[in-house]
Every structure is written in C-alpha cells, then in structure tokens.
C-alpha cells in the first residue's frame, strides 16, 4: 500500500506540473501555471518531510530558511536587464545542489551498490559541477563582471578532451578502488569537472550567450535527473527530464535563430579561423566605405530633422529593439515614444527577433517591464510580412538581426540567418550608438541605403529628442486647432 501511495503522490505532483507547463500559452496563464508548479513542488516537499523522520531538524530548517530568504530577496530586487545573469546564477545553484547530493550519496557508508546507481552518481557529480562553474562564468559575463568576449586558449579542444579523460579515469578508479579512496578521488573528479565547465563556457560570449544559458538550463535538469536515479526517486527523474527537454528546445530555437550549428557556437564564439579573418577583413573594408559615405552624408542635425518629419508623416511604424536598447536603458523612453506615436493615430508594433537580448525571450520581458502592451510584441515570422506596408522602421540598438547581408551575401558569419526585413520598409531610422558592425563583425549594408537615416549616439538621448519633437508638434497642432 505504501508503495502505491508513493506512486499516487508522484503521479499527482507530475500531473500538476504538466498542467502548470501547459498553462504557458498566454502571460496570464503563465502566472497561474507558475503558481500551480510551485504548489506541486511544495506539496512534494511536505510529503517527503511527513513520510521521513529527519535526523537534524535544526540544520534542515536553518538551511531551508537561509536559501528561501536569500532567493526571495534577490528575486524581488533583480531588474529585468539582470534577469539573464540571475537565471544563469540559478543554473549554477542547481548544479551545486546536484553535485552535493551525488557526492554525499557516493561517499556515505552503504553507498549505492548497483552499477547503475554508481554510474549515475558520477554523472550527477560531473554534470552538476561543470554546470556550476559554467553557469558562474556565464552569470559573470552577463552581469558584465567578467569580459564578455569569448576566450579561446591554445589547444582548447585538447585541454577539454584531456580533462574528460582524467574525469573518466578517476571515476573508473573510484569505482574499483573501494570506499577508502572514495572521498579523495571524488574530490579530484569534482575539481576537474569544475575546470571542465569553466573551460567550456569561456569560449562562448556576446550574442551567443542565449545558446549557452539555454544549454546550461538543460544540463542542470539532466544533473537533477541523475540525482533521481541515484536515490531511485521518480519525481526527480521526471522533473529533471522535463527541464532537460525545455533547455534542449530553447537551445535549438536559439541556434536556429542564428543559423549556427550548436557545435559551432560551442567551439569558440566566432566561426572558425577562416571565416573569422574574412569577417575582420570585411569589417576593415566596411569601416573604410562607411567613413567615406558619412562624409557625404547628412550631419546628425540634418538626419534628426528629417527623421522627425518621417515619423510625423508615417502612418505605420515598426520598432526593432536590440540589446543595445537595453544597454542604454532606453526601453522606457522607447515605450513612451511608441505611446506618443499611437496617440497621434499611427499604428505601432515591436518586431522581436528570437535572439534579441541575452536569453530566450529576454526582449519581451524588457519591454513588458517598460509597460509595452504585449499584443504589440510581434514575432519575426508574423511581422516580416508587413515590412513592405510600413512607412518607417525605427531600429534601436540592433544590428545583426536587421543586416540584409544575411540574406544577400554568402560566406559571411551571418549568411542564412533569419532576419527582420527592415530593408523592405519605406524609410529606416537607426538609433544605434555607432555604425560599427554587430557581434558577427559583418558591416550592415542597410546603413548605406539612401532610405536610411543614421541617428547615431546614445539611444536614450536620440529617442527623447524624437519624442519631444512629436510632443511639441502635437501641442502646437492642438493650439492651432482651438
């Protein structure tokens, strides 16, 4: 009966979790889905506590309170631009929990007798530890505490392979040498795995971060699932597997949105040496032509004046936000500008590229925080059909995701990447900091088109100026009318 009860409880928790995840269709549903999942897990904890007498209630309660309070405090304070760093940090915390459990289960007396248990223990330990260090590095990069550019060591792949061989060797030794050596050898495995995760994550940076963070989501889930195998707990296996599935899907979505294979992203930021040098050459070339063209082009004031007229006369405007907008913290001004344009009777949409931001869906959250109506946040496939009927596109801190080179040229790092077709609109206003190429290093040919107005500089200032001009004009109009 007891086993049946356990199975029933497990099934009930899983059903609740399934309901929770399937509510993730609309933002409102997601909120209830999140609550449902929270209730499911809290119930599972309550059941475990009721069914098992714990030996150290003080330690247990203390640890739970410390973790819970810290989690709440940080979760309440973090801003939306810090979310990727926070989520990466949590992947790391998940890794720590997993390798700690695996470590204790493997070293305590009466360690898992079965081969399956032991192998899962090693896997949980290695994946958990590597997830921990990889996530900490990712979190540091995302919080701009560490340099964000990818770092590739000489013979990076060889070092990674060597570490893997050492880990496997140590695990085999631990399995055969017996309990006396276990703690020492496992500590060695732990350290090597931490090194492995760090070396793995350091090669990935910049615009590739969404892939890394999604992948770490998957590995954190996988580590949890292996912990489930060690302690033979179905709930851990089921939840871990679901999270692993989620992370895998998001990793695939991000890779597809950049038209890069997962392995290419992992093997060191920019595409291999040949492509890399080609990109650098192209960059140098691009800077040359850009310098020439800016000399013949309008000054900032002239461009701004024309931009104001363009915006006033447009009836359909699409705003394309990129991570540059978030860096300039301009999303609030952009939201005001969108509101103003709507008040003037124009239709305004936001076009969101899947990799805009530093984690999947990040741009949506940033704009939701700035109080932009989520009905206006349009996905790439949906919005791409409408650029032809659009009078003005306003690009704010985005470059690679609107670069026509992705469609027109071959042999560039972004060739074949799906882009937002801003170049199909009648006019294009670019509020970027400068006209340097984006992360890919490919110069943006959109900047050289006659229909493009470059409003270079701090997006905050540029957008504010556009906003002010519309307001002043609006007031004058009202004054004239009355």
């Amino acid at each position: 009966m007891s086993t049946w009860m356990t199975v029933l409880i497990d099934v009930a928790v899983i059903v609740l979790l399934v309901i929770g995840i399937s509510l993730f269709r609309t933002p409102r549903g997601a909120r209830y889905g999140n609550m449902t999942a929270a209730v499911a897990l809290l119930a599972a904890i309550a059941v475990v506590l009721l069914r098992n007498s714990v030996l150290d209630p003080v330690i247990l309660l203390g640890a739970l309170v410390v973790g819970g309070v810290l989690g709440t405090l940080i979760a309440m304070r973090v801003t939306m631009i810090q979310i990727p760093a926070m989520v990466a940090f949590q992947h790391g915390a998940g890794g720590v929990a997993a390798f700690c459990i695996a470590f204790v289960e493997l070293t305590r007396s009466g360690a898992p007798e079965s081969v399956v248990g032991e192998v899962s223990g090693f896997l949980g330990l290695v994946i958990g530890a590597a997830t921990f260090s990889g996530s900490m590095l990712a979190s540091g990069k995302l919080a701009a505490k560490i340099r964000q550019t990818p770092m590739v060591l000489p013979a990076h792949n060889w070092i990674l392979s060597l570490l893997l061989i050492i880990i496997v060797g140590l695990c085999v030794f631990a399995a055969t040498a017996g309990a006396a050596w276990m703690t020492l050898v496992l500590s060695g495995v732990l350290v090597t795995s931490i090194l492995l995760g760090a070396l793995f994550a350091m090669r990935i940076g910049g615009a590739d971060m969404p892939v890394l963070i999604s992948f770490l989501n998957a590995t954190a889930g996988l580590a949890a699932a292996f912990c489930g195998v060690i302690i033979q707990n179905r709930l851990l296996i089921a939840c871990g597997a679901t999270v692993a599935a989620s992370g895998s899907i998001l990793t695939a979505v991000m890779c597809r949105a950049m038209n890069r294979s997962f392995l290419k992203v992992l093997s060191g930021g920019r595409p291999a040496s040949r492509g890399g040098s080609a990109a650098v050459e192209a960059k140098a070339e691009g800077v040359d032509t850009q310098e020439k063209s800016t000399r013949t082009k309008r000054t900032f004031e002239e461009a701004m004046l024309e931009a104001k007229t363009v915006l006033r006369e447009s009836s359909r405007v699409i705003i394309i936000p990129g991570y540059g907008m978030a860096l300039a913290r301009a999303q609030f001004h952009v939201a005001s500008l969108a509101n103003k344009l709507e008040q003037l009777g124009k239709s305004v949409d936001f076009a969101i590229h899947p990799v805009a931001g530093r984690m999947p869906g990040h741009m949506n959250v940033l704009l939701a925080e700035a109080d932009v109506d989520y009905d206006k946040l349009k996905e790439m496939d949906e919005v791409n059909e409408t650029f032809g009927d659009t009078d003005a596109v306003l690009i704010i801190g985005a470059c690679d995701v609107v670069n026509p080179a992705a469609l027109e040229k071959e042999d560039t790092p972004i060739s074949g990447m799906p882009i937002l077709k801003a170049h199909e609109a009648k006019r294009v206003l670019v509020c970027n900091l400068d006209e340097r190429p984006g992360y890919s290093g490919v110069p943006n040919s959109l900047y050289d088109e006659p229909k493009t107005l470059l409003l270079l500089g701090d997006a905050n200032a540029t957008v504010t100026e556009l906003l002010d001009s519309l307001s002043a004009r609006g007031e004058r109009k009202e004054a004239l009318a009355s």
Partner: protein
Amino acid sequence: MADLALMLLVFALSFGIGYVLISRVPPLLHTPLMSMTNAISAVTILGALLLFAVPMSTGNKVIGAIALVTASFNLVGGFVITDRMTKMFKTHHGAEHSPGDGQS
C-alpha cells in the same frame, strides 16, 4: 534491472511529454519559462532532504546543508521571479490611449 528499465521509462516519458508541451510555449514567454523550469529543477531539494533521513558524517552534513540552501534558493527564487515577470505582461487594448484611437 527492472528498476533501470522503469527509471529509463520515466525519463523518456517525461522528456517526451516535456518536449511536446514546451515546444508549444510562445517565444513571448521563453524567459519566464526558463526561470520556472529552473525552479522545477530545484526538485533536487527532495534528494537533499532525504540525505538527512539517514545518519552521516559531519562533513557530509555540511555538504547536505549546502545542497539544501542552493536548492531552496532556486526553488523559492525561481518561482518568485517568474511570478514577478509574468505579472509585468499587460495588455491595455487602447484603454488609456487617446479616446479616438482604437475605439470603434
């Protein structure tokens, strides 16, 4: 062996069901989705709690406590932050925009 088969089955089924459910989540909600699945992976807290059901060395108790702290941090933090994020998504349908616009 039966245990292994059962565990593999649970893993494969959960991965499959999770895959189907999650591929239907719109990109709009991918960030809250990831932070919620993060909280779900803190189910390892059950494993950490069960460590304390059997006697163990002091060193292992410390490690177990670390597991508890990190897992509860993820669990609570993950759900709270997802709640905050999903609350931010609003739709006004022109309610507070100019009266002439959007009202037909």
